[in-house]
């Protein structure tokens, strides 16, 4: 059993290397941001452990500095994080039968953990549940350690890492490409791309995600027949 876990950890680690680069960069940036906003490192540490979702954590800094508005905070959190609903629906089968680990897998289902756990080809001799567990755990550790480090060091850090966050873009491009190479037709990827791009232009960078999700859902539902017929899904 122990050997099982070690093998799963070894198989999982290479998949998380780009996340390490991206999460340390973003996590440290987030920690520094909290530090210069006047919060001790306990805040980024605790928030990165419990929320584990980058975009909301950045936004939470300004919410903590604004007048107390718990209901608004809750609603904003729901809206920003709504895409996780899609991840959950896609992972219903993959997370099934993973025992107690399932609770942690769902708790730690950020964009990056979802993307790797959905798309990675797990070798046959590796326990799938433990593989996904370690992908999630490693990503969590990268994010928390980066945030705490940034919070401790604050603005002492000097770095010319401009452009490093592109590592996340590059990773999602590769994952999308791998997905496209697996399918014969690309109806649903095309729907995702066109709807998201159109909503970005129409609604702007800060509020395009919800309409994009709605549009994707609508079109996937409307074209269910042809998409299922094409045999991709």
């Amino acid at each position: 059993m122990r050997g099982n876990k070690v093998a799963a950890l070894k198989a999982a680690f290479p998949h998380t290397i780009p996340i390490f680069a991206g999460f340390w960069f973003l996590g440290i940036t987030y920690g520094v941001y909290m530090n210069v906003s006047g919060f001790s490192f306990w805040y980024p540490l605790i928030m990165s452990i419990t929320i584990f979702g980058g975009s909301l954590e950045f936004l939470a800094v300004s919410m903590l500095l604004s007048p107390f508005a718990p209901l608004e905070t809750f609603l904003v959190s729901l809206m920003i994080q709504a895409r996780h609903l899609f991840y959950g629906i896609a992972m219903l089968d993959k997370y099934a039968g993973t025992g107690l680990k399932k609770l942690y897998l769902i708790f730690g289902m950020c964009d990056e953990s979802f993307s790797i756990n959905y798309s990675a080809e797990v070798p046959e001799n590796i326990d799938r549940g433990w593989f996904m567990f370690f992908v999630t755990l490693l990503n969590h550790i990268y994010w928390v350690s980066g945030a705490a480090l940034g919070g401790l060091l604050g603005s002492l850090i000097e770095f010319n890492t401009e452009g490093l966050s592109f590592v996340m873009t590059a990773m999602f491009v590769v994952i999308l490409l791998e997905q496209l190479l697996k399918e014969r037709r690309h109806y649903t990827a095309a729907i995702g791309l066109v709807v998201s791009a159109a909503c970005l232009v129409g609604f702007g960078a800060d509020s395009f995600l919800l309409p994009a999700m709605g549009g994707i859902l609508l079109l996937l539902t409307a074209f269910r027949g042809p998409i299922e017929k094409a045999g991709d899904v």
Partner: protein
Amino acid sequence: MMTLGQQFITIGMCVLGTMLTRFLPFLVFSDKKPTPKYIQYLGRALPPAIFAMLVVYCLKDVNVAYGGHGLPELIAISTVVVLHLWKRKMLLSIAVGTALYMLLVQTVF
């Protein structure tokens, strides 16, 4: 300035909102009863659309009217795509694309 208790509640609301979106599908559709066909279909059809959406999400703050006009992103993404189709090595594609992008935004644009 919020009190410590108010800060605690504010962070708690962020956690609650996040966890609700992560746990809800698993609470609604349990292992015990079969998942509706429509939801099963969505589970298969959504991921390619989601990955496309995430790529757009990463590029949301690129402004085609200023700075590099989106050129560094275009060049780096094209490189990632070509390199990946050629070698099919995930880490290599990501590393080269990121290094090229950093070089472009730090020195050229």
